[in-house]
């Protein structure tokens, strides 16, 4: 059974002055997806999202959306975003990179205010707010002025504001930008929970490694063009030539280990990343390399703490695609 398309972008072109920011972008977002758009800063992610929600008008191409009433009726055709701006605004919830709410109002006041702007009844709005406060973990702080909230709480409030009218699609532009690793982890968890509640999520980020475990589909955007669209695994298997060995030893004389490893003629090492407490080794022949590493460790009296062999991360695929472009 085919999935229901909630957003469809067709040959989208957008330029500011002479600069082409989006150049023939096409993809579909299906119901229930966590659709990630990855790209470097300035690749056109924000422009793409803003054009999709109708805030910007495309120069060429079209963006379609599925009205809420047609979510279970696949026979009904999609509608053009730019001809139904007010309707489409009820379909999606949008949280930009910068939190967008009133700093002088409390959490609950913000939610009530934005909910009322969607023309919701008080009963439904209160019910939604209650659920959202629980979901975002802001229940205890609901009467706190937004200005006094921490960065992570402000981000969660922003997402709550975007979800207050129960949109079918939540669009998040760089949701974890400016957040520390712990808060980033919490944010991804929140996004996962929102998706589990049935909300389709479209997000952009440049934290590729974090999107890998979260997104069901990823579009790689570079210089205004979509280089590839697919699930993380599809992309990995499509583009991987290396595997990565995550190695943690004690006392961790990684430089010497790498030197000795590179001297081995039967092992090809493409890239090594020293993370201080561990190293990541990229090699097309992980099994041979692992044998060799264990041998070297024995020679050096290095104690093994942890070792894992993985397929390459999205980071590597992204770098590879970008280099080829």
């Amino acid at each position, binding site marked *: 059974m085919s999935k229901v398309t909630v957003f469809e972008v067709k040959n989208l072109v957008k330029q500011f002055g002479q600069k082409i920011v989006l150049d023939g972008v096409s993809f579909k977002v299906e119901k229930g997806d966590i659709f990630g758009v990855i790209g470097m800063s300035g690749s056109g992610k924000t422009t793409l999202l803003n054009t999709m929600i109708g805030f910007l008008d495309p120069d060429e191409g079209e963006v379609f959306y599925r009205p809420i009433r047609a979510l279970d009726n696949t026979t009904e055709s999609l509608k053009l975003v730019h001809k139904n701006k007010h309707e489409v605004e009820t379909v999606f919830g949008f949280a930009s990179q910068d939190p967008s709410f009133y700093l002088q*109002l409390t959490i609950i006041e913000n939610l009530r205010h934005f909910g009322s702007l969607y023309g919701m009844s008080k009963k439904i709005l209160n019910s939604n707010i209650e659920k959202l406060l629980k979901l975002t973990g802001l229940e205890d702080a609901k009467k706190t002025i937004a200005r006094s909230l921490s960065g992570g709480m402000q981000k969660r409030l922003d997402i709550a504001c975007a979800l207050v009218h129960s949109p079918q699609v939540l669009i998040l532009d760089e949701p974890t930008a400016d957040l520390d690793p712990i808060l980033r982890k919490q944010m991804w968890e929140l996004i996962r929970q929102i998706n589990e509640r049935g909300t389709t999520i479209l997000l952009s980020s440049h934290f590729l490694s974090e999107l890998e475990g979260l997104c069901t589909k990823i579009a790689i955007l570079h210089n205004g063009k979509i280089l590839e669209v697919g699930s993380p695994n599809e992309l990995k298997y499509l583009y991987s030539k290396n595997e990565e060995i995550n190695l943690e030893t004690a006392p961790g004389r990684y430089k010497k280990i790498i030197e000795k490893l590179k001297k081995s003629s039967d092992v090809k090492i493409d890239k090594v990343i020293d993370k201080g407490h561990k190293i990541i080794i990229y090699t097309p022949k992980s099994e041979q390399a692992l044998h060799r590493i264990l041998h070297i460790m024995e020679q050096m009296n290095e104690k093994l703490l942890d070792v894992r062999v993985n397929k390459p991360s999205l980071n590597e695929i992204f770098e590879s695609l970008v280099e080829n472009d």
Partner: protein
Amino acid sequence: MINLFKIIKKNFKILLRSKTSALIVIFGPLLIIFLMGLAFNNANPFSIKIGIYSESYSNQTEEFLEAFRAENVNIVKFTDIEDCIEKIRDNDIHACVELPATLEVSNERKVELIYHVDSSNLILVDTIGNLISKTIMNKSSQQSISLTNILLSKLEETKSTIDAQNAQLSSLIESNNQLKVDLGKVITNLKSINTEFDPNAYNLSQIKEKSQSLTKAADSVVEDTLDMIEQLEDDVDDFCLNASEEQALLDDLNDTRTVVLVLQTELSNNNGSSLSRLVNNLNTGLNVVQSQFNNIENTRTEAISSLNKTIDSISSINNKISDIQKKLTNLKESIGQIKITRADVIVSPFTTKVNQIAAKETYLKKKMPSIIILVVMFIGILLATTLVMIEKKSPAHFRNYIVPTRDITFIIATYLTSLIIIALQLAIILGVSVTVFKLNFLNNWINICLILFVTTSLFIFLGMLIGYLFKSEETSVLAAISVGSLLFLLSDLLIPIESMPLYLYNFVKSYNPFIIGSELLKKSIIFIPPTPLKNMLNDVLLLVIYATVSLILVIIAHKLIRANYLGKLMIRRAIRIRRMKKVTKKEKEQLKKAQKEIKKENTKKMDGRTKAGKKAKAEKAISEYEKHAAGVYLKMK
């Protein structure tokens, strides 16, 4: 509609959350009005101090001082004019009046009063000038009235004298006229005397001629008779008469001849010489009489001529007397035409008594319309600018663009928020004005509300436009204050606009919305009776046009800002990314340092420990490191 209400509610919450701005915006104007009310709610110049200098303080000087005191002015006496002027410079007194030694008026000298004032104090100089002028004018008027009364009484006397003289002249004219009549009669009598005498009328020559011709005729008759007798005698034989008869006839003829001859002799004896003589004598006598008559005629003619001249002279005199009479009458009439015979009216025919279209009010009440519009203008502009800037600078600005609520709803919400706040302030101001200052608001409240609504709307839209046009809060507030100050300075509240060049005056008076609003409100509050709305319709319409144009510009500005919003967002983000990259470099250095330290510690700890123990310790160390790294990251942020 619900959206509109919610946005207005939110605006109020935001405004009231910032206690300082709420105090300034909401209570500031009320405080100003309250203080102004306390300070200026009187009609008298209680605080004005005037210094008086006179060489000698006579009774008349004291009268002058009393006149000043009657105006509730504080009087300070000086014995040196320089001291008095110095006190003005020190701001101890506001003006100095210099009185002459004597206040007596004469033809040789007028009483001159000099007053010194600090002209840099624009408002006070007028007040003091008016006050001093008023007091001096009062005194001057009293003096003038007294002098004028003397003049008027003299005029009355003159009128009476003219009346008396006119009566005498009239009697003189009458006498003259009688004289003229008498003389006329004399002339008539003289003229009636017949002095005509013509000797020829007696025809003496004709008598003479007739006598002569008669003589001749008689002679001729005699001759003829004689001839006839002779003829008859000759012809007697022819008559066939007997002799007797012939003789008888001859005898008869002879007798007749004899008679005729006697007659002839008689005639020849009386041949007219004596008659002629008599006629001549008579003629001579007649000529003498004629000469005498001629003399009489000449004398009479001369007499009549003289009498006529006399009559003419009398007429001329009468005419002159009449002229004098007329002139006197004219003079009297002229004096009589002076209808205003009250000295006070002559001295001050145009008094400065103000007709009660605007009753004598306190300073505050007089200026209340302008003050109300001033409050409306500044609060309207500043509040609307602040609300727009709060919205523009709020992180929520973007979310407002992507909610299904129209832009115009946000614009109207901002407008209504400002309008409600100003309406509340106005309600308090007008309430206090009506109850405490007795302002005539209730009599004409519909017009006043309409004017205030239109004026407030205009200034709110103007403020919103400023808010949309400027980027930062500081510049927008500065612009709002500048616009308000400009409109305020170009009004007559501070400096009389009449002092401007005519073209500028006309322009400012006709087009400055602050002046228009103030004037409209003044006409509706101060004037008695208030000006009807139809007479003010043009000005009201002009304000409506201003407000409409401002609203259209606000809508355009809102659209433009929405269109540019994303561009600004992208720029802001680019700047932040650049900044982040710098931070990341520092962060990396910090992290590297931290990693090295942890590594060293781990190495030390791992020495001499069991494999399992080592692993556990290593994991703990790694966990600590991660926490430490996270801490470093947070610190960097």
